[in-house]
């Protein structure tokens, strides 16, 4: 067990995958010579060569589509779309091809493709580079959508994704790359299934990805004032592990869902709907959402901070619901 950053964990998984399986290759914008926009693939070009670590032109639709085609042709491509913001240019390939081909072909085709991308806000890069669209992707049957929120998951979920026969989309919150955590290269966490990151008895705080460290910090703060928050890391958005959420609710009887995306039509809305549908009679209070404000994310720090879930807003939401009878 060693301490590494989330970024180093992603890199270690990429290296491991490339070393273990000749069918695996990495392609995307600046993954090679530049070393990756977030340095996740730094050094891999030298180690594995230009055939397997491929810099692409700025052609998101075509290199994602080429990843689908290469997967159909027997490869195990890892496509890095630099950020979720640019993935919008590849939506047609993702929604109409990657997600449909197995079903639409009557089961003849499979697309064992892994697409990684950075997501999220919080780095003062303004409205066009701060999106959180993993909830949109979770809307689409035919793909698997995961959001590793720990160093161990950053490594293990990528390797687990490569073992899948169908497309997996990995959303790495850009704010997590420098985060340090324990790392065991032999650990193999499952690709999906939620888990309890911190046990508690008063309120369930349900979140994923970049909001997980904030939720854990909020739980620490709340503990000092006598509120016991249980933190659920959803890990995967599709498939969504409703059972783990409901088991927690049955215990705490209160739910706060934290999601950096805009509230309307957010993934938090889906989580709340499932709680309402299947856990309604376990609740002592209506579920609460802590989401992004419904604005294009602004550049100045004070405004960006105000637009996103923060430690203080999570604490306030949990404190509020904990007091309700």
């Amino acid at each position, binding site marked *: 067990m060693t301490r590494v950053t989330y970024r180093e964990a992603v890199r270690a998984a990429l290296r491991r995958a490339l070393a273990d399986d000749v069918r695996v290759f990495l392609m995307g914008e600046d993954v090679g010579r530049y070393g990756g926009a977030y340095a996740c693939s730094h050094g891999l070009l030298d180690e594995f060569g230009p055939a397997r670590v491929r810099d692409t032109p700025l052609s998101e639709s*075509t290199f994602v589509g080429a990843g689908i085609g290469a997967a159909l042709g027997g490869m195990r491509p890892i496509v890095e779309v630099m950020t979720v913001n640019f993935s919008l240019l590849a939506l047609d390939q993702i929604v109409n091809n990657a997600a449909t081909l197995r079903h639409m072909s009557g089961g003849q085709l499979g697309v064992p493709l892994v697409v990684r991308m950075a997501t999220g806000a919080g780095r003062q890069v303004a409205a066009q580079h701060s999106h959180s669209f993993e909830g949109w992707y979770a809307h689409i049957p035919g793909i698997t959508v995961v959001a590793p929120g720990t160093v161990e998951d950053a490594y293990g979920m990528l390797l687990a994704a490569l073992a899948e*026969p169908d497309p997996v989309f990995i959303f790495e919150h850009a704010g997590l790359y420098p985060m340090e955590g324990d790392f065991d290269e032999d650990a193999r966490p499952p690709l999906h299934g939620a888990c309890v990151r911190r046990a508690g008895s008063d309120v369930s705080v349900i979140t994923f990805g970049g909001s997980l460290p904030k939720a854990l910090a909020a739980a620490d703060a709340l503990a000092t004032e006598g509120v016991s928050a249980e933190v659920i890391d959803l890990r995967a958005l599709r498939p969504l592990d409703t059972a783990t959420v409901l088991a927690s609710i049955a215990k705490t009887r209160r739910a706060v869902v934290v999601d950096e995306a805009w509230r309307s039509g957010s993934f938090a809305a889906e989580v709340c709907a499932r709680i309402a549908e299947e856990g309604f009679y376990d609740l002592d209070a209506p579920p609460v959402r802590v989401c992004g404000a419904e604005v294009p994310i602004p550049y100045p720090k004070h405004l960006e901070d105000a637009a996103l879930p923060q430690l203080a807003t999570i604490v306030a939401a949990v404190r509020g619901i904990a007091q309700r009878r």
Partner: protein
Amino acid sequence: MLDASALDRAHALTLWREMLRIRRFEEEAVELYSRGAIRGFLHLSIGEEAVAVGAMQALAPEDAIVSTYREHGHALARGMPAQALMAELYGKANGCSRGRGGSMHFFDVGRRFYGGYAIVGGGLPIAVGLALADVLQDRRRVTACFFGDGAVAEGEFHESMNLAALWRLPVLFLCENNLYAMGTALERHQSQPDIARKAAAYDVPSAAVDGMDVVAVEAAARRAVDAVRADGRPYLLEARTYRFRAHSMYDPELYRTKAEVEQWKRRDPIVTFAAQLATSGVLDAGERARIEAAVGAEVDAAVAFAELGAWEPVEDLTRDVYAAAAGERTR
């Protein structure tokens, strides 16, 4: 003009028969559509048969095909059984895609027919990826990608040409230029309507061919495929052709004149090739009747197969959304 001495008689008859199979299959589909047996979109390639048949002669079984939503002809010319295609039009479980795709989404992995893609331009990146997989696995194969003139306006055309050329990938880009992107004429959607010339921007060799002449298409496709195979680089072949019917089953055809359609029909690839074959003594009345009867019987058998086919059980609705057992990942 056909040089009968240079063209093998049997091969000439094969070309004509293959075009006739597509024509009769689609004419039958029109009838079935009118009766309500086929629903949804039905994009016919009537008038464009020479492109599918000519081009397919140049491809080997190990080569891959990526097609469009107007792909009945490509599928038949590739050797997919008419029965499985007709059943797919019906939406029956014995269709080539279990009935789930319908007219626009034929698949046959065994014949390396990787599907009809119904978002214009959407198949081109798939073809690039299939070719990349071949290169990375040291397989010397060609991936042929059909698309229409409308796709040339999509970014994916330009991105895919660039990427295939940049990475030296063996893709035959095959543009079926039928002069209309649905209802928008080529000169109304392209600043440079000479599609073959666009390849120069990507350092891709290209050629244009008369898409109403099956012999010319075959010759051009063989040159193109030979070049792709020899150099491992992409090639753009533009076949200039014409769609005799509506964009889909019905449209008011406000965008073109009846006179224009009639003028192109005089160049009907099946009629003109039959006349050439008759003149050169390859196709006499008896042979013609035999082929017509055989093709008619094949289409009839396809309809019977489709009629007899079962509907996929509703319980299988979510089967194959993922490779895992149905339902496991559906929520």
